[in-house]
């Protein structure tokens, strides 16, 4: 299968007042289209930094990310934004729903940013994650598990090539966590959605087809 997302020699150094801190040190990783991989490692090993770089939210100090055949190291910020909008969906640990909007509008906004018809597709997507009856509720009126399901609907409603999930079950109890992981798995299985899931939880990581371990900013050998 073709490679949809590739990290080539990714290094990220954060320049702080005290001293430069290397969060990533030459990471190479290739993700094939339709693959479900999890990236696992202890806190501070660079997992989230890797996710932000793969999602084109940050630029590497060295190395590059190749997304769907485009080397993103040599393109403008505007083009990177366009690629992110077209190809990437994010799910965050803290859900990051917009508090002032209903569940339906939270999902629809991802489509509106692309100038696409929004409401009916947002409703379909909410139905797909089992929240059709709660589409008018605001995030504060939903349980944490339901909020994360809205966040997944928002990430997938644009049919991104790659779903990047940063500790999506980190704030959930085990029951809600299982539901969210089942949901992610359900989108992966029939449609072949490419998924990169960041976690520090072994059980969560085992849900993926491939497990990549990180330590001290590097991919650890298996």
């Amino acid at each position, binding site marked *: 299968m073709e490679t949809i997302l590739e990290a080539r020699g990714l290094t990220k150094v954060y320049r702080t007042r005290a001293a430069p801190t290397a969060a990533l040190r030459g990471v190479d990783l290739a993700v094939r289209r339709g693959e479900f991989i999890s990236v696992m490692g202890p806190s501070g090993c660079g997992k989230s930094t890797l996710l*932000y770089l793969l*999602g084109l*939210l*940050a630029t590497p100090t060295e190395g590059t990310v190749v997304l769907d055949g485009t080397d993103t190291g040599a393109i403008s*910020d*505007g083009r990177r*934004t*366009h690629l*992110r*909008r*077209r190809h*990437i969906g*994010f799910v*965050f640990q803290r859900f*990051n729903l*917009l508090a002032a909007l209903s569940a339906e509008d939270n999902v629809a*906004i*991802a489509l509106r*940013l*692309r100038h696409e018809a929004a409401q009916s597709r947002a409703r379909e997507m909410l139905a797909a994650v089992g929240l059709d009856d709660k589409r008018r509720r605001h995030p504060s009126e939903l349980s944490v598990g339901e909020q994360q399901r809205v966040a997944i609907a*928002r990430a997938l409603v644009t049919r991104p090539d790659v779903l990047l999930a940063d500790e999506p079950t980190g704030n959930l109890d085990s029951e809600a966590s299982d539901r969210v992981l089942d949901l992610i798995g359900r989108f992966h299985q029939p449609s072949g959605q490419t998924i990169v899931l960041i976690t520090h939880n072994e059980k969560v990581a085992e849900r993926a087809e491939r497990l990549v371990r990180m330590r001290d900013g590097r991919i650890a050998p298996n």
Partner: protein
Amino acid sequence: MRGLRAITFDEYYDILASSFVDMDLVIGSVVFVAGFVCFLVILLTVYTMVVERTREIGVLKAMGASRTQVFGLVMAEAGLICAAGIVAGFLLTWASRALILDLQPLWTVDIPAVRFAYAAALAAGGTVLGALHPARRAARQDPVESLRYE
């Protein structure tokens, strides 16, 4: 007669006109101060709004919102505040006029339509100037730092 001076109608008109020049200066100063206050209020309101929504701006950027879209969102929200302010201002003016005429029926309170247009233009100008800096700040926010913002 001693102690009295006769003046022509033209002289009287000139005296009257020169006093209105002074009045225009006072009104102009008040308008300038009002415009400056409008600019400051919008600047502070929109800046606070942008800081409070740092995380939300990060989320929008993660979803692929461009700098232009974020800039446009902030300016649009400032525009809504401005529109609400203009409507409220016009209503207050109308209510004040009605109250004055109710209390003093012989007075004349004449506000030409062009004055409303000036007031709206002043508010719109103050809003654009006041919202420009916070909107640019929002558009240029680093998405990762925004997402990590507490």
